[in-house]
């Protein structure tokens, strides 16, 4: 059924259709609307049976989900940014224990400086936590990915983060096609845990493992994720059969057939990139041979699919809302790994951190520069060099320059996002 609704609401309704049994909630922007909506459904009784637990921290949220999942309940929670970091220990633990928890990450920057706006720093900080990480491009995809995530997680006994851009998706009102309960029930079987805490068949979960077996345990986690590389496209195909639309999968390509330059990105920015490419491809604009590769599944990283998508291009530009401080990009490093030995030129563009708008105007300029191999290996899109250089000079001159963020704001004179 087509509905116009906020992204958070769409995700909440999709999650509800998945019949979660335990939901843990701790408020942090921009995921709050999701759990608020779910909480209301539980309280009014439309989502039942389900326990909705207002916990005292994200650490507790993930821990409650761990307990619930280990006791055989389909468990869900949502978080973002600092919240994800605060639960980080439990995030690793959930995957280590093989518990199929589904968690929405409404992607948001990580402080300091504290910032509530979107980028991918939070989710990517947990890229090696052992969770599967799926990135939604649109609200429809966010909704669909949650349905697929429960099935995938429970089949693999691994937890999954469904990542969606904070505010840009979570707070955007868009038309979505909301599946029926019957469709979801047909697609998503009941949760049959691989291991469960049950007095009639006791087990000890969470043993201490020493050097004699630890590597094997870790390798098995890797093997599981490799297995997911087969399952994800298969489940996406099944999804299409039931719901009638393409959603999920490992990667999506757009106009890459003859592309010499391929932009690689994740999340909602793919929309802006596609619009830019459509414009660049117009004959009146020069008919640029440019396309885009969207990464839906970041973990496991679909090396083969990425390599296949890029193999006929001459170059790729990774545009990512994340940053490996002291190196450059995070996504870019992964993509470069996929194309090792293929002789491709590759560029890293760090963009949109902390909610900095990524405009078509900037992308046009960037992509043209890229096509001409005029980019530095690492580019910071729309960086205010004036402000940066001033601060660097200040720091050279004085030992005690005060907090960087405040100094920059003073230089800019207003909230940083204004001019962009």
């Amino acid at each position, binding site marked *: 059924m087509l509905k116009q609704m906020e992204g958070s609401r769409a995700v909440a309704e999709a999650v509800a259709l998945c019949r979660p049994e335990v939901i843990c909630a701790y408020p942090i922007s921009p995921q709050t609307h999701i759990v608020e909506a779910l909480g209301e459904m539980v309280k009014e009784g439309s989502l039942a049976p389900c326990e909705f637990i207002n916990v005292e921290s994200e650490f507790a949220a993930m821990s409650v989900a761990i307990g619930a999942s280990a006791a055989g309940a389909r468990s869900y929670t949502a978080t973002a940014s600092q919240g994800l970091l605060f639960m980080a220990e439990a995030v690793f633990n959930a995957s*280590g*224990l*093989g518990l199929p928890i589904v968690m929405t990450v409404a992607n948001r920057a990580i402080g300091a400086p504290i910032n509530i706006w979107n980028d991918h720093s939070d989710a990517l900080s947990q890229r090696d936590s052992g969770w599967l990480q799926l990135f939604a491009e649109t609200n429809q995809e966010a909704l669909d990915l949650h349905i697929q995530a429960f099935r995938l997680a429970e089949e693999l*006994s691994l937890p999954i983060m469904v990542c969606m851009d904070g505010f840009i998706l979570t707070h955007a009102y868009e038309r979505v096609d909301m599946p029926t309960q019957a469709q979801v029930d047909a697609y998503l079987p009941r949760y049959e845990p*691989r*291991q*469960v805490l049950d007095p009639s*068949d*006791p*087990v*000890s*979960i*969470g*043993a201490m*493992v020493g050097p004699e*077996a*630890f590597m*094997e*345990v870790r390798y*098995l986690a890797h093997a599981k994720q490799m297995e997911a590389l087969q399952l994800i496209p298969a489940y996406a195909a099944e999804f299409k059969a039931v719901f009638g639309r393409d959603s999920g999968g490992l990667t999506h390509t757009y106009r890459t057939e003859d592309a010499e330059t391929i932009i690689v990105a994740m999340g909602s920015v793919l929309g802006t990139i596609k619009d830019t490419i459509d414009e660049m491809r117009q004959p009146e604009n020069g008919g640029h041979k440019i396309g885009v590769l969207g990464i839906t599944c970041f973990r496991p990283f679909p090396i083969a699919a990425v390599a296949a998508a890029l193999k006929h291009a001459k170059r790729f530009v990774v545009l990512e809302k994340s940053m490996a401080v002291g190196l450059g990009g995070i996504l870019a490093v992964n993509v470069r790994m996929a194309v090792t030995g293929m002789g491709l030129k590759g560029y890293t563009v760090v963009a949109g951190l902390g909610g900095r708008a990524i405009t078509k105007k900037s992308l046009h300029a960037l992509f043209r520069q890229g096509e001409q191999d005029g980019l530095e290996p690492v580019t910071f899109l729309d960086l205010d060099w004036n402000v940066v250089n001033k601060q660097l000079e200040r720091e050279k001159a004085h030992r005690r320059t005060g907090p960087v963020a405040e100094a920059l704001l003073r230089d800019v004179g207003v909230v940083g996002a204004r001019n962009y």
Partner: protein
Amino acid sequence: MDKPFAITLDPGSSLANRTGSWRTFRPEYVDRLPPCNAACPAGENIQGWLFRAESGDYEKAWRALVENNPLPAIMGRVCYHPCEGGCNRQQVDSAVGINSVERFLGDEANKRGWKFDTPAAATGRRVLVVGSGPAGLSAAYQLTRMGHKAVIHEAGPLAGGMMRFGIPKYRLPREVLDAEIKRLLDFGVEIHLQTKVSNVLDAMMDGFDAVFLGVGAHIAKRAYIPAGDANKILDAVAVLRGMEGESAPMLGRKVVVYGGGNTAIDVARTAKRLGAEEAIIVYRRTRDKMPAHDFEVEEALQEGISIKWLSTIKEAGESDIMVEKMALDDKGFPQPTGEFERIEADSVVLALGQDADLSLLENVPGLVVDKGLIQVDAAMMTGHPGVFAGGDMAGNDRTVTVAVGHGKKAARAIDAWLRGEKYAPPPKPEIATVERMNPWYYSDAPKTVRPVLDIIRRQSTFEEVLGGLDETNALFEARRCMSCGNCFECDNCYGVCPDNAVIKRGPGKRFQFNFDYCKGCGICAAECPCGAIRMVPEEN
């Protein structure tokens, strides 16, 4: 369940890990000697019979008791219970009233007509027992149990020896004495009354393989007191024996008893009961030096007996006596002061100690008598092979309990001797001192007070002064026993082991250690209330 590798494990699988290999000390269950048992001259296994009484099985308790002593109803009245003096419970609250439980069991047996267990098959051996006092009865009983024929020759008209002729009725009712003797007769002990043995070797010729001498100390020691004709000077033995005759001795209104032992007390209290207005004990030393038991002195004082300490009788006149005050020298010996006092007295009873009549032993080769006592070896045998002795004849501890112990020990020795062996008592385990125990676990429970006859009746009748316990409080008293040194199945070791390494074997079967897992921490030993576990170093 397809469990995740290494992370999820099968329940209880740690049994594969034998932590017993960590052990440097190993716990061992032991049976230590309870101090009550150690103190009992009769060698009773007091803890053992109390253990049975604790569960309310009085017959089993009585049967355990009579393995060592056939006279529990008597002993429960007349024993001075050194067991209670040794009792570890004194360090928790007060000693267990062992004596009162013993009496309860003895009385139960009499009331319910319990018989001794059937003796062992007859051996055909015959043993002559001289005297039917506690030593003789005990020896005869034990010999009978072992299958030997025991024949007692008793000089007196009734069986019981000094129990009958030396202990007043108010302490030992005669029906109790008679009942326990009758049980022995029923058991097969043969008693020939008024059969004095005047020559032991001659008597043995009458088909006996051995003899046990258990003659009591019936002969009073005398002291020379210048006396006028009119004053009556009697001896304690005669007075007490007289109480068993047709008419009670005539002592008068004012009676002076000379001496400081239990017999002196007995006589004074007897005199009071016979109607004496005044019964005065004259004793040359102080109360703390008095050989009589404190509780008996106390009871006597309660009954109105007065005691003149530090006094000796210098002479006895027609109706009074002259007493000289004494003073203790720096060594604690009484010395005359030259200070005199006259006390009215219708009679003076000397209670200065007794001797046994040893005339039957004249000309027995090898037999040695020293200071009125027959010398015996560790197996109670005299210098003459086959002649054993015990009780008053063989020691200065002249109590019923000691005599019963002698009788038992001698019987065992005789049994061995009849088989051509030498009796060697089994080695005694170490004593269960309170330091080896953990008395924390015993809940506070003060000793049950026995009912005491009211004072008026005590001064005028020969009714028993000290009452018995009824069943409930006998049970209570039995359960005050801390079972020192002997497992009483409290489950502590089973419960306190952090490694579940103690196996509970079920009621009456105690416990055993599972050395596969016991790490040797020693908590079981530390928390064993009764000290029945000890830690020993592992060999390797």
